[in-house]
């Protein structure tokens, strides 16, 4: 079996913008995800970072099958999810589960924890016979660090961090190989955030999971990810190992993004290379021609407006970077 558990080829999602009530006609499209290629290897964590509106959540929804791609192919363990149907597709989906951002709204307040964590078995009854489910749910609760005796409690009886653990237990129920975490810790306080991150890492070691970890917090992603993809306006602008992205970023957007993250060390105040971008992210309904970042880029020249830079390895960039003028710039460390 190949080592690649998940692959996205040229994945596109456009949301149509329509006009008129009875006779709707399409006047454009929000190009939320516009041609993304990704590979996830067994046992690795792929971080996806980007600001709001860059399409990272739409990408996540497509990967788990909550959204149908406009075009492009998605392979889960070699299966093309768009081509296979029925039972085969359900088996594919079983292998990729989602942990959602908000632990307050992603759990049904009227269901007990046991019902929530056991619900995946209702959808995929072939996985486990009914009489064995309750014991399995308790085992899952124990695995994520919750008291198995609390199986009959309701979500409101738990704190935010504990609720996120319930969400993780639910994602683990069907023994998936891939877990997709969409901003799993951004709603939590720092002291609780660390507990959940440690739990995710522990589970990966024990169960050999592959993670796609979507977040806007770059420090958290650095901590947990092996490889990182940086998204801007529906496209990946730079992808590489955690070290390549954080130590040797070559795309100007990555550099700006990294330099904007405050480092919790007052001694470094004013010593870091800070790039303050001007303006806002353009609308994904009408992205700029050529390079999408050029409207905010300090390096932009004529070629950037005419020719879209490919995401490729370049002379000055050891890892794929979508910039005509890619070059390494250390923005993370203090300058001395």
């Amino acid at each position, binding site marked *: 079996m190949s080592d690649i558990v998940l692959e996205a080829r040229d994945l596109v999602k456009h949301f149509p913008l329509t006009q008129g009530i009875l006779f709707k006609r399409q006047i454009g499209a929000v190009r939320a995800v516009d041609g993304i290629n990704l590979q996830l290897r067994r046992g690795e964590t792929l971080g996806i970072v980007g600001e709001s509106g860059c399409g990272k959540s739409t990408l996540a929804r497509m990967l788990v099958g909550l959204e149908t791609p406009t075009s492009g192919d998605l392979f889960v363990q070699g299966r093309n999810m768009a081509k296979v149907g029925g039972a085969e597709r359900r088996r594919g989906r079983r292998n990729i589960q989602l942990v959602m951002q908000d632990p307050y709204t992603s759990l049904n307040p009227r269901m007990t924890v046991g019902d929530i964590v056991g619900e995946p078995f209702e959808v995929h009854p072939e996985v486990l016979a009914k009489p064995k489910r309750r014991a399995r749910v308790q085992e899952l609760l124990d695995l994520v660090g919750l008291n198995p005796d609390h199986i009959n409690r309701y979500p409101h009886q738990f704190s935010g961090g504990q609720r996120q653990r319930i969400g993780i237990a639910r994602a683990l129920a069907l023994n998936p190989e891939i877990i997709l975490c969409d901003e799993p810790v951004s709603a939590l306080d720092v*002291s609780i955030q660390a507990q959940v991150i440690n739990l995710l*890492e522990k589970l990966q070691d024990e169960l050999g999971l592959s993670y796609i970890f979507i977040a806007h917090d770059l420090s958290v992603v*650095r*901590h947990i990810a092996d490889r990182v993809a940086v998204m801007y306006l529906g496209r990946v602008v730079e992808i590489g190992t955690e070290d390549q992205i954080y130590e040797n970023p070559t795309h100007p957007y990555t550099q700006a993004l990294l330099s904007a993250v405050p*480092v919790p*060390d007052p001694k470094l105040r004013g010593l870091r290379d800070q790039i303050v*971008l001007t303006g806002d992210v353009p609308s994904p309904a009408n992205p700029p021609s050529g390079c999408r970042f050029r409207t905010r880029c300090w390096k932009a020249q004529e070629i950037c407006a005419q020719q879209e830079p490919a995401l490729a390895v370049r002379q000055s960039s050891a890892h794929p970077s979508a910039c005509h003028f890619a070059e390494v710039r250390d923005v993370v460390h203090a300058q001395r």
Partner: protein
Amino acid sequence: MSTDVNVKLDALPGLDADALPLEVKNLQVEFRTRNGIARAVNGVNFSLRAGETRAILGESGCGKSVTAQAIMGILDSPPGFVTGGEIRYRGVDLLKLREAQRRKVRANRIAMIFQDALSALNPVFTVGFQLGELFRKHRGMSRADSKVRAVELLDLVKIPAAKQRVNEYPHQFSGGMRQRVMIAMALALDPEVLIADEPTTALDVTVQAQIMSLLAELQRERNMGLLLITHDMGVVADVADQISVMYAGRVIEEAPVREIYESPSHPYTKGLLESIPRLDLKGQELSAIKGLPPLLTDIPKGCAFNPRCRYAQDACRRDPVPPLYQVAPSRSSACHFWKEVKADV
């Protein structure tokens, strides 16, 4: 600044121009709920000098926002009640003022920026109208004059094409631009103290950097005191001069910014610092603080942090609450064992 308002402010009882712009002493706030009394703030002390940035750092439910609301006098009451302490603006105890006097202080002398700019702005009025309202109500200006001032303010916070945008509604602005409008509104009447309650939490990092540098610049120009309420230790390290760390309604450590990051002397501060992943370092396992913050209706005896603390001993589990020990000049920690914590690297 028009003089008529200053005349009225001079009439505040006990106003002393040489006193500190903001001093909070032993502030206590409680919420009377159906489930009992939640003691949100239990004796908070701090002061703020002109031009200084003080960060109030803490996690959700530690009482940091309630403290800010009490200072502004915008606490929801009921259920919230200030039950004790003093909040002094230049020597005047704001808690003893009549509401009409307090309204003069609010926005004129002490102003506030909120976290969620979209819900803090009124969606049915233009941005220009809302900005101008301050000048009409507090300065008695005409509509036309107030509009001119509104455009000036938008220029001040670097909103491009201010003349056109002044006639737009809040939903037509992006998140960062809305936060700029909030800053413009807070600065309209030239306050001496600005309270910023999580001003950048809802924003993306690149926008956060823009807003923080704008705030720093305006603060420097006007020599304002800035009270920054946040949970983000990164932002604090970048902008604060002094830090007060809050836990369960109390300040548990107070220190200048460099010293607190170098040698935290309270186990909670130390735990917080150890639990954040850092951008410039690839870490191993994060050392998380075990357990959960206490319910404010049921704060543990003795030190509120004791059930989660690895230094805790019997003395910590008994009343009285540990006092603020003097750790160094201008540094204090509410931990019986601050010496051990500080020495422990």
